């Protein structure tokens, strides 16, 4: 076996250009797969992070009934105190209690359905960071009475400007229709169509006064300090707050799951296609290499090397080629990912549409460390499979005929 390995190793370097092509295919295959996975991962992460950061947060707490039926009566018992206690937990970065009503927003020109959030601007700002997304006006900084912040798109549909008056109509705690006039203090533009088109933010004190809620809150949104502690925090909260519904972003936003499924299911197809392309490239090159070496192989057989050894020799050659190509490919992929992870891929030319779909315009490819190994293993196995047929072809040789062919 040691001799076989020596022969194979020498064979590899005897015909340098051919070996380099096979090594090159392996390197390119590994690099392409790493790049593809990194790019798609970056796409998914930027989408999900955008949604978590500005829209749904990591964890939301509701009274269980409120989820099924957004009735304004289903407040979290002693919600404000709960929010204050949660803010002391070191695993939680920020807490925002909100009261919620669904109703109608009307300007003199048009009306539409909205979800109305009563918020405490200081807390809300630290959770959803909406103050950084204000395009016009300010985030509850002006001295207007009854200020309201809505999405720019909603403002455009309603044909209202800063300081314009809008009327919110919703049901109060006794299920009477109540209305309040608000002054437009700011417009925001987020990555979430829902917020841009159909959400209004007002001060909690205003909403609760009109709705007769006193200190009642319907929702507590939590932004976790470290995403890895999310699961343990979730179980802790669930056992501590048994009467409440504690949900993570995965449960709150099933469309994120759909998006993940869509991208994920497609990714496997892409990987499959690239692997098939790779295996074909390798089969073809190796096959030609074997056919080119008819005389040589015929000679080896004629002087007594048996078929099994010939077969093994070609397979071992491929293993050597993979062992050279694999690390080079991984290194190249690693460098590319490292560089792009810092520089990012600028997609700002498409940013309008990107935002609509919840992406930020600079994309940072990302890949988990284990993926490198999986990819390399996959490609090397592919290369070995690709060598089997040529090796089989080589074994089929008839030594005398082979020696005669030019």
């Amino acid at each position, binding site marked *: 076996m040691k001799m076989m390995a020596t022969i194979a190793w020498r064979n590899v370097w005897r015909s340098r*250009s051919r070996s380099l*092509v*096979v090594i*090159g*295919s392996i390197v*390119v*295959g590994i690099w*392409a797969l790493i790049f*593809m996975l990194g*790019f*798609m991962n970056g*796409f998914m992460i930027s989408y999900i992070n955008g949604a978590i950061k500005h829209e749904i947060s990591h964890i939301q707490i509701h009274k269980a009934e409120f989820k*099924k*039926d957004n009735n304004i009566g289903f407040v979290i018992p002693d919600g404000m105190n709960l929010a204050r206690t949660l803010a002391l937990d070191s695993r939680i970065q920020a807490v925002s209690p909100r009261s919620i009503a*669904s*109703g*109608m927003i009307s300007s003199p*020109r*048009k*009306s*539409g*359905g*909205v979800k109305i959030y009563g918020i405490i601007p200081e807390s809300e700002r630290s959770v959803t960071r909406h103050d950084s997304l204000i395009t016009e006006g300010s985030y509850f900084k002006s001295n207007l009475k009854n200020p309201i912040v809505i999405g720019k798109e909603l403002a455009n*549909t309603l*044909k209202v400007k800063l300081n314009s008056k809008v009327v919110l109509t919703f*049901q109060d705690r006794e*299920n009477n*229709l109540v209305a309040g006039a608000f002054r437009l203090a700011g417009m925001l533009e987020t990555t979430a169509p829902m917020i841009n088109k159909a959400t209004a933010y007002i001060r909690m004190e205003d909403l609760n006064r009109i709705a007769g809620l006193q200190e009642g809150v319907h929702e507590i949104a939590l932004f976790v300090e470290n995403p890895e502690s999310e699961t343990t925090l979730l179980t802790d909260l669930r056992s501590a707050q048994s009467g409440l519904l504690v949900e993570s972003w995965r449960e709150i936003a*099933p469309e994120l799951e*759909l998006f*993940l*499924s869509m991208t*994920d*299911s*497609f990714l496997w*197809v*892409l990987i499959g*296609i*690239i692997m*098939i*392309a*790779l295996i*074909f*490239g*390798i089969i*073809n*090159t190796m*096959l*030609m*290499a074997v*056919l*080119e070496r008819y005389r040589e192989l015929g000679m080896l057989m004629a002087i007594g090397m048996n078929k099994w050894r010939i077969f093994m020799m070609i397979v071992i050659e491929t293993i050597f080629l993979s062992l050279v190509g694999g690390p080079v490919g991984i290194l190249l992929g690693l460098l590319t990912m490292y560089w792009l992870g810092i520089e990012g891929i600028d*997609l700002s030319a*498409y940013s309008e*549409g*990107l935002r*609509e*779909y919840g*992406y930020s315009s600079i994309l940072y490819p990302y890949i988990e460390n284990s993926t490198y190994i999986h990819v390399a293993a996959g490609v090397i196995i592919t290369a070995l499979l690709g060598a089997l047929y040529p090796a089989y072809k080589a074994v089929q040789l008839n030594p005398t005929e082979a020696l005669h062919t*030019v």
Partner: protein
Amino acid sequence: MQIKMAWRNIWRNKRRTIITIVSIAFAVILSSIMRSMQLGSYERMIDNSVRFYTGYIQVHKLGYWDEQVLDNAFAPPRDLQSQIESLEGVEAAVPRLESFALASYGKRTKGAMVIGMDPEKEAHLTGVEQKITEGSRVGLNDSRVLIGSGLADYLQMKVGDTLVLISQGYHGVNAAGKYAIAGLLEFGLPQLTNQVVFMPLPAAQYFYGAEGLLTAMAVVTDTPKKVAAIQEAILREVDTTAYEVMGWKTMMPELIQGIEIDNISGIIMLLLLYLVIGFGMFGTFLMMTKERLYEFGVMLSVGMHRSKLQLLIFSEIVMLAAIAVLTGFLLSIPLIEYYSRNPIALPEEYNTAFEKFGIEPIYAFSNEPIVFTSQAWVVFFMALVLSAYPLYKIWKMDPVTAMREGR
């Protein structure tokens, strides 16, 4: 003579030729499949969001789209519907009167979207009757309504209960009415299921005080391919100073952009595939050159001019590539055609997420001709570019060493 020699050279070593042809043909097939799946997923996306709600084309009063209020409704000329429906490729013209209202039952109230529609025509667009999960369909002259099951759950209503709608009607008149629920609807899009009220058109017109008015006439076409032509034809038929005729691309710019973004990643994936394919093809070309070093050396030493030899090899490659690309092209057509008719189902684990949104859990394939032709051309040119290697080799070659090495 060049051509004849090239042709004979190709078939002199059948095995080598076949390997090369297979590698190129395979490249065409693989890249066609990839592109077809990408375009197929876009077609599915468009179909899901356009075909099931807005329709591919809509006719409105001029200015309605920018300001979608009831006051911008229009009284359709008597023959508008029949005119549009008589156009070739039009399946149906679907009249709609859409606006917003507060829906309430008992002590609960929620914002709802009221769509006044002609049940018979609507069947061509949203297929509203197939979406009924409970209860029965409504007739055009019914005064009962169909509501989204999400809305019904919220209001805690059942079939047969009476819904109260309050809104502002045409030119500010007060609109209020009571409607019995005929059936519940379930749509793929949660936004629809949670807020939609489908009302027969005459009842809706009466409710909003908008007798004889429509906000939109949506056009359903046989196939998305005819949209542009039909839009042109409608533009010729209607008075463009009073009406606007909009295609889905104008109505749903986000969808177009969403596709464009996805297309960026799609193109990047395709380029990666080309890279891998290119390497495979390059490998075969390189081996071919190596195998024939001896032959090239002999040709040069018996006095063939280098450029002649290059031309000979180039014509060989052109022929080979042409045959291969054509083979790949011809093989990919039935393959993709088959899968576009019998799509592959997604792995089980993804089904729930897709079904929740009413999207078919399949890998969709597009059979647009552009899929095949574009990939065939790309691979063909790739082969031509890669032929630079053997040509360069010949240019630099020393006949004596070549003959020795090639032996």
